């Protein structure tokens, strides 16, 4: 089930071109888009063109890629157009690709470190000795903040046991601004009045949100923030470029707030409440004139999966680690704590209210012990979750990533005994995997995709070419050769392809 309300990178693609050009004036933004959103092939194209004095004719670009990889090439070019990095120009009478000037200039600056220091921040030089902050402290700070937000969303709908509330105080209550944002994004619903204390109830979108990995969560929240920026009289593009700026800073260094303008200062104070940056307070409660980006910030635009998983382990796994110290000692590692049996019973060695609340989304919890909860998955409990907007894959990936080391060992032993080395033994029992998918299918037999239906092609050749093209750029959803119809989720690329084809046929 696609979450339509949750903002994501697709949101960025809906911005008009002029906004993009403004965004690309900041080197940090250009670099961030380049790192985070482009495929390897698209990156290669950009790098190839970056220092070329003249546009590159389309024909020549085509020569760079083997025919077998035409699909990837088309996809890369489409992507570059969508992000307004490539533009079509005519050069010596032929069609050619060129980088948009703002993007090219900014990326060159980002790579060579040229330009004013505002592009990558000014390192604060005058940090008092007693106020130096270590990376471990920053991690801890980010964890507390982030856990506070997630805990607020999930824990709020479940009543934690007495004993765990004291342990869980390490997580901070999110600031009113964050709560407001969660509400605006429809991740939670507030009920009750101010005087009697508001209670938050997590929504369907919120469920899907909490099961994501941290990087996706942060971006979802940040895009919400950008989308609501105008409410706080801030400019979307300014906010976005500031976010990209923060993401390009270095972990463990203090940066000066002096070069920041008013919008950026306001942004900064909001990012503090997400745990994305850390700004120490003076004794009188006013913030000091420097700030530290935390690991949440510095991995925002990272494209390497290792650093991303590092964030997940340093910040994310602490969610399970924080209050399950007993499982730590028994299992040796902090990460896994869930055992699933083939009879759908589930044992989770945790006492964290957040984890228990998450499990209760799709498990009928039966009993609770100081360091263990037990329960059973059933058709109705899984379908309840699916109705709430959680997919079978999300459940499975959650269970797999939190599987107890014992289960991993078992799967490895099984794998070793296996004669076929290509056959990967899943960590969860295969029956469980299948059954969860079957339960989902039973409820979710219908899929819908918004987009465009192309039909009424006069002959097969006219149908075949755009259809294949759509498949290559990855927008084809469905086709029927007999009826000469196909369905795409984006039409821009196909439309220009068909127009070009028609022009070629006539000329």
């Amino acid at each position, binding site marked *: 089930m696609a979450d339509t309300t949750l903002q994501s990178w697709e949101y960025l693609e809906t911005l008009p071109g002029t906004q993009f050009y403004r965004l690309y004036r900041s080197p940090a933004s250009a670099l961030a888009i380049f790192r985070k959103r482009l495929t390897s092939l698209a990156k290669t194209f950009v790098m190839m063109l970056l220092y070329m004095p003249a546009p590159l004719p389309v024909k020549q670009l085509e020569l760079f890629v083997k025919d077998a990889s035409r699909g990837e090439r088309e996809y890369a070019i489409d992507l570059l157009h969508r992000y307004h990095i490539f533009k079509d120009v005519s050069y010596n009478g032929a069609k050619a690709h060129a980088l948009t000037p703002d993007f090219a200039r900014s990326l060159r600056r980002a790579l060579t470190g040229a330009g004013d220091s505002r592009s990558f921040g000014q390192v604060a030089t005058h940090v008092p000795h007693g106020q130096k902050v270590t990376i471990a402290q920053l991690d801890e700070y980010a964890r507390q903040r982030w856990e506070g937000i997630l805990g607020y969303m999930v824990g709020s709908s479940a009543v934690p046991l007495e004993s765990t509330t004291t342990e869980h105080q390490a997580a901070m209550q999110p600031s009113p601004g964050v709560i407001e944002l969660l509400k605006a994004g429809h991740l939670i619903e507030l009920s009750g009045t101010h005087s009697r204390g508001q209670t938050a109830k997590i929504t369907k979108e919120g469920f899907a949100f909490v099961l994501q990995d941290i990087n996706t969560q942060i971006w979802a929240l940040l895009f919400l923030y950008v989308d609501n920026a105008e409410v706080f009289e801030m400019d979307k593009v300014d906010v976005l470029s500031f976010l990209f700026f923060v993401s390009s800073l270095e972990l463990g260094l203090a940066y000066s707030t002096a070069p920041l303008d008013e919008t950026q200062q306001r942004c900064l104070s909001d990012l503090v409440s997400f745990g994305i940056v850390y700004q120490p307070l003076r004794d009188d409660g006013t913030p000091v004139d420097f700030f530290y980006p935390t690991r949440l910030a510095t991995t925002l635009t990272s494209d390497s999966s290792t650093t991303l998983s590092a964030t997940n382990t340093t910040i994310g796994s602490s969610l399970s680690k924080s209050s399950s110290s007993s499982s730590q000692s028994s299992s040796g590692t902090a990460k896994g704590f869930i055992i699933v049996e083939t009879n759908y*019973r589930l044992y989770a060695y945790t006492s964290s209210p957040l984890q228990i609340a998450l499990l209760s989304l799709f498990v*009928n919890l*039966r*009993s609770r012990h100081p360091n263990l909860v*037990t329960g*059973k998955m*059933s*058709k*109705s*409990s899984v379908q309840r979750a699916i109705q709430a907007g959680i997919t079978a894959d999300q459940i499975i990936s959650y269970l797999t990533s939190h599987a107890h080391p014992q289960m991993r060992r078992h799967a490895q032993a099984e794998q070793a005994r296996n004669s076929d080395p290509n056959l990967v033994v899943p960590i969860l029992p295969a029956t469980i995997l299948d059954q969860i998918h079957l339960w989902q299918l039973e409820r979710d*037999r*219908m*899929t*819908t*995709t*918004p*987009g*465009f*239906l*192309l*039909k*009424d*092609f*006069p002959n097969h050749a*006219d*149908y075949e070419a*755009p259809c294949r093209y759509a498949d290559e750029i990855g927008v084809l*959803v*469905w086709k*029927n050769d007999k*009826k000469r*119809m196909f*369905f795409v989720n984006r*039409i821009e690329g196909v*439309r220009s392809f*068909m127009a070009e084809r028609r022009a070629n046929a006539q000329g």
Partner: protein
Amino acid sequence: MPKAVKGALLQCDPPQMAMVRKIDRETNNAYIIEEIDDHTCLVKENKVEEIKAKVKELMDTAMGVDDDDNDDKDSDLD
């Protein structure tokens, strides 16, 4: 001349498609733009959630509300 029609592609199995058609017929074609085959049809984009909810409703009544005899009540003990 090829035409492009905006909408949402709905894909499901034939029994569900029969329900979609029935609902559509009863509401004077409020949902379907184009019937394609037993597995696919094009529906109005803004009515997607509505038709989904209606099909679910119809299915629940057709299958009988059997939520009570579910396996939540676990017979064997823990």
